[in-house]
């Protein structure tokens, strides 16, 4: 295990060309250790989504370097041939909206990822159930997503993000639709999961309620990151 779950150095991203070009990321530098949860905070249009998309291997940055664990995934160009497999095996995604698959029940929504990676159905479901239990939604295992409350849906979405035991989790405003009690519960879960599974987690947020929980925070403004110490209040 390397020192860092995620290491980003001098990452740049320019959208478009010529006069209409937008430099969304100008100089992004981040390091997140395995088991650590860091906050990424910035005003609208500062480049947060662009950063998540780059790290999530769904858009190609323009320059810089990204390392996941010991694997250099980007160094002025992709260093990984199968980005799809990279996303499936190395990166967990948690979104603002849960985006569960409406025609699969809770268990299969979570079990789908290991199934896509070739794990047998029974084994994938067992793994899903283990995470649902850890997230305290195992009693909803056979329910359809539409039957769940917002908080339950978000926990299922987190279970899905975690089920392949990715070394990295990218969470985009995961608490935005939740009240403060549920928001704090989600942050607690992310911290627990980070510790249990040695996962490096980046949480993009505006949410004033959860900002004090981070030990380290990256501020991003006009595509440039600045690191600062957080309060790390509830999770010292």
């Amino acid at each position: 295990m390397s020192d860092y779950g995620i290491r980003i150095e001098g990452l740049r991203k320019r959208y478009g060309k010529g006069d209409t070009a937008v430099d969304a990321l100008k100089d992004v530098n981040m390091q997140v250790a395995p088991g650590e949860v860091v906050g990424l905070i910035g005003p609208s249009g500062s480049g947060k989504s662009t950063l998540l998309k780059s790290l999530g291997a769904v858009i190609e940055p323009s320059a810089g370097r990204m390392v996941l664990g010991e694997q250099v995934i980007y160094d002025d160009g992709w260093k990984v041939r199968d980005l799809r497999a990279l996303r499936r095996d190395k990166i967990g995604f948690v979104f603002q909206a849960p985006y569960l698959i409406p025609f699969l029940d809770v268990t299969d929504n979570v079990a789908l990822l290991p199934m896509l990676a070739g794990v047998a159905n029974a084994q994938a479901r067992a793994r899903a159930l283990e995470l649902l239990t850890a997230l305290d939604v195992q009693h909803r295992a056979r329910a359809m997503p539409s039957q769940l409350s917002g908080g339950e849906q978000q926990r299922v979405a987190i279970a899905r993000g975690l089920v392949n035991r990715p070394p990295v989790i990218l969470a985009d405003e995961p608490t935005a639709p939740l009240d403060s009690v549920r928001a704090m519960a989600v942050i607690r879960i992310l911290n627990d999961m980070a510790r249990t599974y040695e996962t490096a987690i980046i949480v993009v947020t505006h949410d004033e309620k959860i900002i004090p929980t981070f030990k380290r925070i990256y501020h991003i403004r006009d595509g440039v990151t600045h690191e600062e110490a957080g309060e790390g209040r509830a999770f010292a």
Partner: protein
Amino acid sequence: MISLAGRDILHAWGKFAFTGVGLGLLIGVTLSMAGVYRGMVDDGKALLDNSGADLWVVQQDTLGPYAESSSLADDAYRGILTMPGVAAAANVTYLTMQVRKGERDVRAMVVGIAPALRGVAPGWPPYLVAGRQITRSHYEAVADVSSGFALGDRLAIRRSQYTVVGLTRRMVSSSGDPMVFIPLKDAQEAQFLKDNDAIWQSRRRSEANPSFNRPGVPGLFDAVIASQSSNASVNAVLVTLKPGQAPDVVAESIRRWKRLTVYTRAQMEGILVGKLIATSSRQIGMFLVILAIVSATIVAFIIYSLTMDKIREIAVLKLIGTRNRTIAAMIMQQAVALGLIGFAVGKISATFAVPIFPKYVLLTPLDALAGLFVVLVICVLASLVSIRMALKVDPAEAIGG
């Protein structure tokens, strides 16, 4: 791996069921149309089979007697009987007309059949479902049950009354009209006899003609009148061959020696299918093409809207590493499932609809199989638009702005 398509169908089963039934009714209409065509071909074959003939001798250079009118002398059969290889030869007349029974009239093909020396002559109905064959030489009829006539019914054909003495089944013309068999003499009269006014007119003309009405030749005028009012024509001579005779060879010798046009069974079938019902079959073919296009549009539209509803989920599936192949398979399987539901509903509804059609409708397993194949091809093609769209979805959309 679980079946994403299957799960989605189970989840949205109502939508699938409704669309499947709608599509199914359309497919049912399509299968029935094909059945109508097959029925027409089969009616034609039944017509040929039931005539019991190996060869059809008709007026020179005509496609008669079914596709074109044909008229030949009613004693031509005697010469044909003497040809080597010929077992039997019998006159026959065909006339499609309205046959009246009381107030009601039915469109029927009136067949004049020659008296049989022993048993059944060519042209006679090969079997009856009720009653007996015609035994008198006048005013008896054998009718097909599809005419709705019953034993003992009195039918009016032209100026004469006929009693139904026998009933047949599946004895129909190539356009599906029921056959009514009557004695040849009566049929010749019905077909060729002039009405009284016309006879009177022609008698008056002949009387005024000095070369027919010669004062010095008594009896000539009467002979002329007699020949004018007799009906010495029939539409065809049906010929059966002795066992082991090649139809083509016998046909060729009749053509050469009797200077008449002769068709074998295979040629007659070619005329019926290739000429008589050719326009109808093109008409039906046109309908089939339109129905196929409509079905394809429906499937494409439904699959497209189902896929549109899932764009977000597809972006998420892609983001979490689902292969394009898996997503394409999901969409295509749904289209195929829709096609299968539609086909099943269509096959069942067509089967139930068949007896309601006024004409014979024949559903063949081979047509059903071809229909299934076409439905599946249409569904696969119709899903391509949606698949293209799904594959263009950017996984980055799942992350949002």
